């Protein structure tokens, strides 16, 4: 490339930043891909879920803070059907599902359903700000990316796990699902 002596602007293509590795597209629950790496977790009180092998396995225990900093443990809900909805305030597809979770929590509350929103926001302040203007009728805990690997799932939001009364993961949904599909998955764990 010849050197220019003028002070005029020089247009140069200097590099390419690849946003690569994003090979995941939306999948239905029946076609969920196998993640590529095994996972490890610290402090799990149950056997770890292997990457991609979650259905039928016992959900690992965890303790995470809620929006007020109070600890919440999965163990508190032993014997209940539980939905873990991994979401974040910056996730548009997640926002579609949030009102559905409110409806489904109300619909199946009497049957013991516990919906838990697991926030992957890096800032608890963002979660608090969101909840201040979008009241939810179910438990929200703040994870900040620590828990998803424990559940053997690639990082994509929303990710939803359905846990039956025996504490076993019956289904995992990666990406935005339709409300009828979520309802059906919940009925299977009641």
């Amino acid at each position, binding site marked *: 490339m010849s050197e*220019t002596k003028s002070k005029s*602007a020089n247009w140069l293509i200097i590099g390419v930043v690849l946003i690569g590795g994003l090979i995941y597209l939306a999948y239905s629950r029946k076609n969920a891909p196998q993640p590529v790496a095994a996972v490890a977790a610290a402090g799990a009180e149950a056997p770890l879920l292997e990457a991609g092998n979650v259905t039928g396995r016992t959900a690992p225990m965890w303790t995470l803070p809620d929006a007020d900093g109070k600890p919440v443990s999965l163990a508190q809900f032993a014997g209940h059907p539980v939905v873990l909805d991994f979401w974040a305030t*910056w996730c548009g*597809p997640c926002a579609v599902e949030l009102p559905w979770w409110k409806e489904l929590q109300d619909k199946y509350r009497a049957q013991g359903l516990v919906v838990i929103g697991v926030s992957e926001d890096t800032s608890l302040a963002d979660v608090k700000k969101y909840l201040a203007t979008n009241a939810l009728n179910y438990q929200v805990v703040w994870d900040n*990316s620590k828990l998803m690997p424990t559940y053997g799932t690639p990082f994509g*939001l929303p990710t939803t796990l359905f846990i039956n009364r025996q504490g076993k993961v019956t289904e995992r949904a990666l*990406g*935005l699902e339709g409300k009828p599909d979520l309802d059906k998955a919940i009925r299977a764990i009641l």
Partner: protein
Amino acid sequence: MHAPAKISAPAHASVEATVTVAIEAGYHIQSNHPKLDYLIPSQVSLTPADGIELKQTDWPKPEEHKFSFSADPLTVFEGDVPVRLRLATGAPGTHTIQGSLHYQACTDQLCRPPATAPFTLTIVVR
């Protein structure tokens, strides 16, 4: 990420360099000024270095795209996105500058976490 070319530029002058962001098909990243305040904007930054100053970052006009999860169109980037960096050079010397693109990508159904993609500029100021 491709290795950058070594760029020659005059001293005490303005230089423009373009970094091209290649976004995989099916994904989009938020524009540098998203319409909704909870969306994470795309940003380019350079680590400060003696002799080179980032004066301005020019993004192309984003696309307006309606997604299944959005009531209104969002401003996003898709495909190959050229980002123009306006730099000011100082005294002669060779400068290797670290830069990064901060972004958050989604498909129509799924979002990946915010991420940072590094790049390097090598500028020979004569």
